């Protein structure tokens, strides 16, 4: 049978089947008139060969480890090595967090991920007034190199990879990490890990900005340049859609705004004189994984393909590694419910499975109690076990990208790519990400999606099990992790001791040098490394930079 005959026959059979559907519909209407994903993409009743007519296998799908990387970035994917199981953790003091890290490593976790408290993330010391009530709450408090030494006590930094969720003061925390390693006798070229260092999304989705966009971009490209020469195995940025999604975006908006940020960083680095193929291989990404299983799997595949194409077409990247999107994934914090919290274990399992089927390179699974507080040790263990069960028992990691070729998944992958690209072009038309932020474009788009979602939950159109359906009377949860108020007092005492015990002249000289470098426009990293080694505090270093660069004020 010729190709045309086959198509004609298919169309004929499709019409016949439609007749059957219409008959069924006249007796039993479907649950909804139209089914859509979070991005407003229609979930058709049935996807078939006609939906993937435009998909060319070699052009659009290809092989794992090859452009455009739709099927994954490595040729053997999880058959060689599973994704990195990396649980984000940090609370209270450096000592408490160090204990949690050693517990997690003992339970088979394969990488560390540091959560810092808000004062640290915004460049304030624990003894500053603005830090009042926030010390050690959402992460660990780090004021100086002394805290960082305790945080990694008995953890060999040449044996572990460490991800740090730190943005505006990323250069300072990286400098402290380098200094701790040096004390352990580990040279910086042996260090493996990631700093988030993605300030753009802070302005419109996460909120821990310090400096205005221009100096922020300068600090970021300084880090790219310094790491290229000194930390060749370090991921210099983790361009993050996670928080964009948490702020309420759809899956398409998550991909679009993240990649738009990525394009801005690449553009800035090239403008600062770097060659795209010298730094692009150290760029990494970070996504959310939410409940709509098939849309999420397609989202990851679409994001990889779109990034590869943009890097090649817009920046003329030549090396495969420059076009490869490697990413970490975290299950959706905003999908967790405070009601019937054990149900969250099931949500996290589905989300984690979608991330694995989408080819994530590393994964954090949330704990069941995180809509209530920071997770307890028991909850964290179940979350880690969830990943281990998927890896070792489900069998999904034994073949690469098993959902490829599904009419539905391939069609959705193409649709997400096209819709995300349309958003990126809109941002181009607005003059790029910084201009779009100033115009409030992303904020408005995300706000609209968040509000539409809330309304759909309140009308019951979107069912949340245990919240707006299948509810029960519950006793208040017990056994929650609390950070005691005394912790803040203790942290201030130990900071005072550090300040009293250091060489005051060395500190003030190093800060003076830092100011000169900041004013001159030279690379900031060497001066920051020198300053933290004198035990100059995070607040002092950021204070100098605040004076030179000014502070961003949300409009």
């Amino acid at each position: 049978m010729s190709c045309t005959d086959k198509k004609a026959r298919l169309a004929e059979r499709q019409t016949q089947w439609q007749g059957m559907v219409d008959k069924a519909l006249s007796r039993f209407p479907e649950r909804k008139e139209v089914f859509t994903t979070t991005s407003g993409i229609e979930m058709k009743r049935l996807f078939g060969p006609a939906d993937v007519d435009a998909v060319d296998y070699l052009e659009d799908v290809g092989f794992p480890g090859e452009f455009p990387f739709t099927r994954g970035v490595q040729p053997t994917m999880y058959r060689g090595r599973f994704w990195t199981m990396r649980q984000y953790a940090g609370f209270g003091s450096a000592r408490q967090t160090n204990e949690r890290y050693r517990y997690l490593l003992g339970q088979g976790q394969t990488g560390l991920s540091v959560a810092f408290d808000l004062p640290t993330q915004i460049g304030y010391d624990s003894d500053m007034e603005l830090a009042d009530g926030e010390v050690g709450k959402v992460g660990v408090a780090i004021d100086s190199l002394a805290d960082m030494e305790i945080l990694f006590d008995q953890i060999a930094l040449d044996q572990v990879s460490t991800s740090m969720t730190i943005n505006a003061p990323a250069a300072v925390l990286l400098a402290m990490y380098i200094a701790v390693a040096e004390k352990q006798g580990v040279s910086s070229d042996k260090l493996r890990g990631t700093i988030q260092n993605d300030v753009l999304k802070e302005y419109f989705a996460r909120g821990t900005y310090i400096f205005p966009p221009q100096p922020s971009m300068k600090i970021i490209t300084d880090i790219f340049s310094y790491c290229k020469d000194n930390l060749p195995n370090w991921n210099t940025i983790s361009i993050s859609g996670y928080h964009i999604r948490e702020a309420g975006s759809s899956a398409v908006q998550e991909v679009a705004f993240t990649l738009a940020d990525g394009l801005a960083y690449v553009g800035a680095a090239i403008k600062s004189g770097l060659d795209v193929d010298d730094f692009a291989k150290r760029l990494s990404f970070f996504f959310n994984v939410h409940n709509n299983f098939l849309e999420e799997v397609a989202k990851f595949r679409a994001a990889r393909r779109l990034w590869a194409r943009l890097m090649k077409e817009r920046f003329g990247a030549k090396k495969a590694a420059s076009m490869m999107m490697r990413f970490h994934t975290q299950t959706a914090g905003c999908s967790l419910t405070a009601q019937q919290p054990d149900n969250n274990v099931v949500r996290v399992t589905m989300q984690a499975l979608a991330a694995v089927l989408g080819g994530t390179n590393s994964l954090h699974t949330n704990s069941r109690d995180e809509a209530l507080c920071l997770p307890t040790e028991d909850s964290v263990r179940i979350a880690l076990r969830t990943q281990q069960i998927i890896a070792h028992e489900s069998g999904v990691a034994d073949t690469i990208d098993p959902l490829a070729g599904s009419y539905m998944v391939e069609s959705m992958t193409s649709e997400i790519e096209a819709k995300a690209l349309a958003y990126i072009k809109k941002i181009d038309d607005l003059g790029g990400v910084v201009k779009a932020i100033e115009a409030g474009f992303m904020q408005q788009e995300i706000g609209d999606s968040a509000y539409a979602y809330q309304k759909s939950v309140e009308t019951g159109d979107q069912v949340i099990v245990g919240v707006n359906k299948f509810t029960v009377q519950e006793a208040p949860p017990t056994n929650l992790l609390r950070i005691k108020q005394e912790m803040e007092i203790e942290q201030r005492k130990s900071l005072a001791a550090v300040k009293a015990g250091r060489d005051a002249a060395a500190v003030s000289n190093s800060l003076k040098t830092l100011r000169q470098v900041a004013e001159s426009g030279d690379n900031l990293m060497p001066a920051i490394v020198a300053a933290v080694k004198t035990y100059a505090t995070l607040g002092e270093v950021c204070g100098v930079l605040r004076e030179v660069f000014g502070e961003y004020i949300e409009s």
Partner: protein
Amino acid sequence: MEKKIKVLIAKPGLDGHDRGAKVVSRALRDAGMEVIYTGIRQTPEQIVATAIQEDVDSIGLSCLSGAHNKLFPKVVNLLREKGAGDVLVFGGGIIPDEDIQGLKDAGIAEIFLPGASTETTIAFIKEHVK
């Protein structure tokens, strides 16, 4: 025409999670109230100054960072000091059950937890703003 209820939605402290604050702002607006949203990273002093300047009937505080026990009562105390103790203050966020009574004793009229509907918040404000 009846006077519109005026509400200040505020984010005290360093927390940047403002999805809830923005959604609530919009829902209150849709319910016919006049709403001012402060934006993130406000000190209690700034919040109270805005509330007095704008002469609001109610303040909604949102905090997901765990600093609520410090920040929420500070706002109420400052309002009282400035002679604006009649402003209805409510709060929301990741707030453990065991903290709720303490916050109410400090003068926060109600705490809305994750999963609370905006309808509940709207009804509460309408009922309690005099």
